[in-house]
């Protein structure tokens, strides 16, 4: 190639330079008809409305139903006797055919759903007609694990709140979808990103962060709901993260730690808190009586290599409680100290009354772990009351990762992944969906890579070994499995229980189904054409109950992608 000729070509290329892209956010509003159908329905969400969400059989106001996060919907119009006649009321196709984890939120007949890449849609919940569509213009740097997901919005006052892949908190006008403000939560170039839905409570917008796979220092932050001003930050990793040098996990199994070597490394290198991970992937629960929040903290960084992070790595893999007003620490319980398997805590905490060891009813907290156990805590001090029978096969726990790869079950996705559980407090049952993916855990040391994936090795699905999933009902007052239904593929998404004695959940195969909540018997199913890997919601319009779920597939388990929101009802 002739150099002069090439330089001439380069000059031509320069002349063809594209103009800089516009960075405005996009909003599309519907023609009058869709809006007109909404009449004078109020978009405003008061604190009182949110406080009583657990008894609201018309709206679906929070990601996990209500502040307790029970995902128990108090409407029995659709029930075991008639669910067989459930059929699609409408289907809505979003612009984004990609991984979908949204929890639909419904306020007075208006539904808010999100998609991958941080789009928000407002829909007429009776017809599925689009009211508005907002597209967040993402910045150039997004660093996120496991797909460009978004798990939904929070609603409060006249606003809809979204957290974005480039780590921003965005407030939208609920009526028009126009952006009111946005604020940067953390630096995406360092591995921070957002896929969770915010939580709105008492004038605050609460948000955690992804990034436990990128060497971040995790947090929960509270922002002023009116203007996005930061009110407080709780670092999920304290500056002294060494803990008590625990040798056994919450279930009493030996984790085979070399405590002497860890202490020597700690003394030599200091506390590793700055890049220790500790993401918070899911919404906190809120206890109004004590004005405290409860959430779980994810894995330490790097996931599989503990040599660079001696100590218990507080408060990773833990249940944590804070004071809502100040963000100050109240209590914690760590499930796996110094986790080197990424079998962390992701599925959101749930507040219900539970029986303590003496059989006395006390305020409790539930968390379903990647280990496959449902953990039951005393809400006062976070202490562990019991853990359930394992919902998935466990083998070789806790084998240390090796260069060649150590086989251990559960695989690193769980058990229960981020999928929220549902509970029926009256029945004392918790409903969880699980993965069974045999994996090998590989160790490979690497220095902190400056905002890149930092796993300290790899976990690999073992080729040829059968994978499966299950839906499990656990009696959380005894820890015993009440019933279990196996599925052909590992399950990720979520589950909803209703007063109709039903649970609804979906599979990567595209099946969306209703089961008898007491027995697990399948009563109805619908093939959605793409993976149903999102939590279902329920609501009522004009006195008629609906069930709604997203069918967009999932990046993490690579189920078939789609772009549909499907609402179901009875005639």
């Amino acid at each position: 190639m002739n150099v002069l000729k090439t330089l001439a070509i380069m000059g031509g290329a320069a002349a063809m330079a594209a103009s800089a892209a516009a960075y405005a956010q996009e909003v599309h509003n519907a023609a009058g008809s869709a809006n007109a159908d909404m009449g004078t329905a109020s978009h405003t969400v008061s604190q009182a409305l949110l406080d009583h969400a657990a008894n609201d059989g018309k709206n679906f106001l929070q990601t996990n139903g209500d502040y307790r996060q029970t995902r128990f919907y108090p409407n029995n119009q659709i029930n075991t006797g008639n669910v067989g006649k459930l059929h699609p009321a409408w289907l809505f196709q979003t612009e984004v055919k990609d991984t979908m984890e949204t929890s639909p939120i419904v306020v007075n007949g208006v539904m808010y759903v999100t998609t991958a890449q941080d789009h928000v849609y407002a829909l007429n919940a009776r017809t599925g007609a689009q009211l508005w569509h907002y597209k967040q213009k993402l910045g150039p740097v997004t660093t996120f694990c496991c797909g460009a997901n978004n798990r939904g919005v929070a609603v409060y006052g006249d606003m809809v709140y979204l957290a974005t892949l480039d780590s921003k908190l965005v407030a939208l006008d609920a009526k028009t979808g126009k952006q009111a403000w946005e604020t940067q939560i953390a630096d995406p170039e360092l591995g921070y990103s957002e896929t969770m839905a915010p939580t709105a409570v008492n004038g605050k917008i609460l948000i955690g962060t992804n990034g436990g796979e990128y060497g971040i220092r995790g947090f929960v932050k509270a922002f002023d709901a009116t203007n996005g001003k930061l009110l407080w930050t709780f670092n999920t990793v304290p500056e002294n993260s060494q803990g008590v040098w625990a040798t056994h996990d919450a279930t009493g199994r030996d984790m085979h730690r070399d405590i002497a070597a860890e202490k020597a490394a700690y003394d030599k290198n200091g506390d590793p808190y700055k890049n220790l991970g500790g993401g918070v992937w899911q919404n906190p629960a809120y206890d109004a009586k004590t004005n405290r929040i409860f959430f779980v903290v994810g894995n330490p960084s790097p996931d599989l290599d503990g040599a660079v992070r001696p100590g218990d790595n507080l408060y990773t893999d833990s249940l944590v409680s804070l004071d809502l007003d100040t963000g100050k620490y109240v209590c914690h319980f760590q499930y796996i100290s110094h986790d080197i398997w990424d079998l962390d805590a992701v599925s959101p905490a749930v507040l219900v009354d539970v029986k303590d060891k003496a059989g006395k009813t006390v305020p409790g907290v539930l968390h379903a772990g990647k280990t496959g156990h449902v953990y039951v805590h005393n809400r006062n001090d976070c202490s562990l009351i019991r853990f359930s029978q394992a919902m998935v096969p466990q083998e070789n726990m806790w084998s240390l990762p090796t260069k060649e790869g150590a086989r251990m079950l559960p695989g690193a996705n769980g058990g229960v992944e981020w999928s929220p559980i549902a509970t029926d407090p009256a029945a004392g049952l918790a409903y969880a969906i699980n993965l069974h993916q045999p994996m090998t855990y590989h160790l490979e040391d690497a220095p902190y890579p400056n905002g890149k994936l930092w796993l300290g090795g790899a976990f690999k699905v073992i080729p040829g070994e059968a994978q499966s999933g299950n839906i499990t009902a656990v009696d959380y007052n005894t820890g015993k499995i009440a019933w279990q239904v196996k599925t052909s593929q590992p399950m990720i998404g979520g589950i909803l229980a209703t007063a109709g004695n039903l649970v609804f959940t979906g599979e990567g195969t595209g099946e969306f189904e209703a089961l008898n909540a007491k027995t697990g018997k399948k009563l109805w199913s619908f093939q959605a054409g793409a993976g149903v890997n999102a939590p279902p919601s329920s609501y009522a319009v004009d006195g008629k109950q609906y069930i709604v779920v997203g069918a967009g597939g999932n990046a993490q388990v690579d189920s078939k992608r789609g772009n549909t929101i499907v609402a179901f009802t009875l005639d």
Partner: protein
Amino acid sequence: MPNAVRALIVALVLLSCAGARAQTTDGKAALCSGCHGSSGVPADPSIPVIWGQNEGYIYFQLRDFKAGARKSAIMGPMTATLDKQAMLDLAAYFAAKPWPNLAIPAAPGDVARQAERINESAGCKGCHGGEWRGDGTTPRVSGQNLAYLRQSMILFRTGERANNPWMTALLKTYPDTDIETMARYIAGY
């Protein structure tokens, strides 16, 4: 690499060192086009397509070349005088271009099936996406130059390309035959 291309690269490096700081984004981009192609088709199969590549990924690579986290005798000097904004501008410039069709043939059925089995084990699509087009700071790999894909995976595996330890750790568990299978499948996807 052909001698003519090598000579061109040397000339571009010298030119870059002499005047990159003073140039506009268009001027800097023109330098890049000498190797990466004035129409988006690289001058050599060992050189990656950057037209239509994901913006965050381009920025991260420029950043890493400059910092030495990704070592390259060519790209190190080319990025030495770029500040953060210049790198972001270049990333935006090339991300906005259309991805060129290199007309790489689709892998035969048996290769594709084996590649999907490997993906199921390694979870490649969890980051690179259902259509292998990546997102943000994760690269599009579908339709990329076959030789570049193959070489990149090998360099990750040996650790010579050290700016993504996850790829190094993962690829250390795979033999050459699997790397060849994945490169052929993804390049022709």
